[in-house]
């Protein structure tokens, strides 16, 4: 495969994997928290939060990308703050691509985890409390293990979404080879140049391959975990 793909195509693939990996890993804790708040919380403004989380799913990706640019760009309020305080620059960097992918994938991840939380019987948590487990311990040894299939499903879904994210990414961080040119951006770029079709086709095949492998891995892990949790 090393000879089959050109160095530039390799770069795009590796970048895509890196972007998607970090987008998934870093948004996971926040997604679990938000999913808990949405599943269990009782407060005014819950629907507002719910709408906000789902916004990237329904907005045109280019709009999300533009909003990210406005907020996280070098002149945006959050972008300026990050650069001044931590020296982090997102605009036109692979980290920015990861942020765009994370934002776009977030609703899918939250949704899957939230469904899993809602399926957990609160009576089991009561039982844990009567056995001496504090809320934090109950979360760690009862609730989280029980929602693990949802967390895995949400993560795979988010990873796949991140691998395929195009609109918001290209709007926010452009299409710089080696820096922000992910697989979809690269495919798009190859299709714009004469004679780029074979390269685009190769990357399409790679995209399909990565997606299928991710799905198979998650299916087998989820099946094993679900069996454990079914208690058989």
């Amino acid at each position, binding site marked *: 495969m090393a000879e089959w793909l050109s160095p530039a195509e390799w770069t795009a693939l590796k970048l895509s994997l890196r972007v998607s990996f970090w987008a998934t890993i870093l948004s996971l804790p926040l997604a679990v928290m938000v999913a808990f708040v949405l599943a269990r919380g009782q407060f005014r403004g819950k629907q507002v939060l719910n709408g906000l989380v789902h916004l990237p799913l329904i907005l045109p990706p280019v709009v999300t990308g533009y909003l990210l640019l406005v907020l996280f760009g070098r002149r945006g309020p959050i972008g300026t703050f990050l650069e001044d305080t931590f020296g982090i620059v997102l605009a036109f960097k692979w980290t920015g691509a990861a942020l765009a992918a994370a934002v776009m994938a977030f609703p899918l991840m939250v949704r899957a985890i939230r469904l899993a939380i809602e399926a957990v019987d609160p009576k089991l948590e009561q*039982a844990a409390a*009567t056995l001496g487990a504090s809320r934090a311990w109950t979360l760690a040894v009862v609730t989280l293990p029980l929602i693990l299939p949802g967390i895995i499903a949400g993560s795979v879904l988010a990873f796949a979404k991140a691998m395929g994210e195009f609109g918001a990414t290209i709007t926010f961080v452009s299409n710089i080879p080696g820096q922000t040119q992910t697989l979809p951006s690269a495919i798009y770029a190859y299709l714009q140049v004469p004679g780029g079709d074979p390269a685009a086709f190769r990357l399409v095949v790679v995209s399909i391959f990565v997606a299928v492998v991710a799905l198979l891995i998650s299916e087998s892990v989820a099946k094993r975990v679900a069996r454990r949790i079914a208690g058989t």
Partner: protein
Amino acid sequence: MTLDVALTHRFSSFELDVAFTAERGVTALFGRSGAGKTSVINAVAGLLRPDRGRIDVSGTRLLDTATGVDVPAHRRRVGYVFQDARLFPHLTVRQNLLFGRWFSEAGNASSEFAHIVALLGIAALLDRRPGTLSGGEKQRVAIGRALLSAPRLLLMDEPLAALDEPRKAEILPYLERLRDELQIPILYVSHSVPEVARLATTIVALAEGKVVRLGPAAEVLSDPDAFPHMGRQEAGAFLLARVVGHDPADGLTRLEFSGGALITPLVEAEPGTRVRVRVRARDVLLALKPPEETSALNILPAVVNRIGRQDGAIVDVAIRCGSDDLLVRITRRSLLNLRLEPGKPCFAVLKSIAVSRRDVGVFETRPD
């Protein structure tokens, strides 16, 4: 150890207002569904916060709404056996059993584990997962899990209600052993008279959130006026007896109690074992002279003790055999025909087959 409970709580449909003390042994919270039984033990466990109330376990205050004391559920050290077992499905039986151990600083760990596993007969299940267990097995594991969290008292919310008759019969002996072995109070919620008659040391009868009857089980169950609250069909007292011997050829067991001998269908217990025998009021016949040439094997001399309410066709009469009280259900016409009144000698006639194996439970009193 002692449990003191006094609480009031306003629900949308009724108001809970109960106060009682539970000592070592089984205190049965008895009543129809909706009487507030589960709310009481949920308040004791810390799963329900009552409007007002106070709960003490052996001098430790768990709740006092007047002073704002409210120990959170996980610090109350209260073992709770739920009706639906609630085992953790992702853990093995062993991990479920040891769950409470992680959070309590219980000493003398492994020997107690082995003891409780043996007591409940769950040694063969340890490496299995809850999903593969039968209902009765799940409930025994749930009991073990609660016991191994080193509780100061044990709460049981209709632990047998979700089980069929054979499973109930499988678990009852374990509950009897717990009652006789444990030093802590057991608060047992039930709406079943047979269960209460086999297990209870003390009965707290609830109706619409209020305590309507409270006292030692033998006393409450033989009280002819307690029955509006106890369920009419199942009414009946119990006798404390001792196994004298078996007659395998006829399939009978001979028991002895304060009022004489009692012959029942074969009981699986060694001679000398103390047993509790439930006798339903409607299974006893009253006679003024000992009947002759009858099929009934038990004819016991007795004295009429108390006569219950006479406002219907049926009257409950408490009679005394030796030092035990039996409850007899007769028609008011028979009461008048026989001119029964307190102090009048009579005979209680009991068919042996009226006592089923389910009605006999092993009962060991250990010196305190």
